[in-house]
């Protein structure tokens, strides 16, 4: 049996670990609160954007009356041969199964689309590192001097390739940078380099309402609705853990008053642009429509990233709460063992003295 000194040292070390995990939990809780606010603050914009499009849609002929074809390239459905998957994972570990779940969902998606050529665009360092190791990076031909092309030419070597690199995009999430990513995706779609775009991310409604989803953003089928291809709900156990963690960290489980404000906005957003008003259009409705569609994609991407960031912090908070609890348990157990060992030593000494005395 270990001696008392070793056990005492062990307890001290576990106590230190507990302190660290506790601090990390509190930090994550604070970050989560901020991320949650941002995610909620972004909702009025996306809701309004969706309703503007909805109202425009009724005024614009989406279908060409003569050929019966869809007019806007972003609405066009092509057979899915080449697919882009945008994987939004976290930048850091220590978040329980957060990154693993995202990767698992992606792998599942890749396995089920064996007949297609797939590009993986990883946002978030954890996912990027992993997919880079698994799949080769996409190669593009250098544009030649004599015949400059609008788009770089692609040399595909493998069925699944990794494109794009966005370091630190999530850390300081700004709409500006997401827009660049979104515009690039839209351009690739318009040039028919890809036939569909999916995003894999962790949807975040509240601490106890999260799920990993695979959502199709392009082609656009319906506005203001999420076109979910696959979803994986939280298990009841995970939910209970998360609720426990949120309670001890002082984070509200149900999104609070801010939600009510947003609700009002969302209700109004539904009316926005949809009233039976005859608008004066400064540009033709079609021009506005064409302009708003790429923005819609960007706003969806941005929203997915905000939610993913909030979910990451929530996952980390839950994981750290579990770690803190485990450490406490371990300390209790070790203390018990230490006391036993000490008592055993004392008992042994007494026996020795007594039996020594009896022998004389």
């Amino acid at each position, binding site marked *: 049996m270990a001696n008392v000194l070793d056990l005492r040292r062990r307890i001290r070390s576990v106590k230190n670990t507990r302190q660290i995990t506790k601090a990390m939990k509190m930090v994550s809780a604070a970050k989560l609160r901020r991320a949650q606010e941002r995610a909620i603050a972004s909702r009025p914009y996306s809701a*309004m954007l969706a309703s503007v499009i909805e109202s425009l849609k009724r005024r614009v002929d989406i279908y060409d009356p003569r050929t019966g074809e869809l007019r806007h390239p972003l609405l066009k459905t092509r057979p899915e041969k080449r697919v882009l998957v945008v994987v939004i994972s976290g930048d850091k570990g220590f978040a329980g199964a957060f990154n693993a779940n995202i990767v698992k969902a992606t792998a599942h998606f890749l396995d089920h689309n064996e007949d297609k050529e797939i590009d993986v665009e990883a946002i978030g360092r954890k996912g990027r590192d992993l997919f880079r190791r698994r799949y080769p990076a996409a190669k593009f031909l250098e544009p030649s001097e004599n015949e*400059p092309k609008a788009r770089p030419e692609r040399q595909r070597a493998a069925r699944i390739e990794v494109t794009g690199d966005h370091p630190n995009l999530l850390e300081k999430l700004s*709409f500006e940078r997401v827009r660049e990513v979104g515009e690039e995706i839209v351009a690739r779609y318009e040039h028919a380099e890809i036939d569909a775009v999916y995003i894999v991310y962790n949807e975040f409604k509240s601490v106890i309402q999260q799920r990993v989803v695979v959502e199709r953003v392009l082609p656009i089928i319906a506005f203001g609705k999420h076109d979910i291809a696959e979803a994986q709900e939280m298990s009841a156990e995970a939910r209970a853990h998360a609720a426990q963690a949120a309670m001890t960290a002082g984070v509200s489980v149900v999104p609070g008053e801010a939600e009510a404000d947003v609700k009002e*906005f969302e209700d109004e957003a539904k009316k926005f*642009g949809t009233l039976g*008003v005859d608008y004066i259009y400064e*540009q033709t409705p079609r021009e*506005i429509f064409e302009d708003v569609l790429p923005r819609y994609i960007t706003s969806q991407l941005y929203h997915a990233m905000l939610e993913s960031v909030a979910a990451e912090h929530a996952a980390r908070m839950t994981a750290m709460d579990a770690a803190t609890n485990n450490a406490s348990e371990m300390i209790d157990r070790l203390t018990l063992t230490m006391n036993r060992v000490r008592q055993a030593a004392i008992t042994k000494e007494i026996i020795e003295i007594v039996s020594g005395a009896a022998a004389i």
Partner: protein
Amino acid sequence: MADTNTLRVRLVTPDRIVFDQTADAIEVPSMAGYIEVLYGHAPLLAELAPGEVRLHGASESPNGDCFNVARGFVEVLPERVTILAESALKPGEINVAEAQKELDRGHKLWSEAGDEAEKYEHANEIIREAESRLQSAKDS
């Protein structure tokens, strides 16, 4: 509120609701030029051009507030104006060095565009946006 002749004005960006208040009038930059909206304006939907949104007689900032906006839309209803913009900055918040860099990038793109209309358009957009930002920063 229904019987007073004040205009409810709102500016919404992806990050937050920049303002939501009442005002006497609001100036909005649209693609065809600046428009000023007063109470009772006919319903209008327009694309925003890079420029300044100006409030007159606003309830929360009576001496006129000004925001540099870019990329978005404005919806005008008789008693309500809603502006959706991807960026909205106060003139004081504009990073002049950054805007200058953007402007240079725009010019560079423009001169490299070759003979593709798409690229010219893209470059022109960047230039317009940067110029409007610089202008706003200078005026304040």
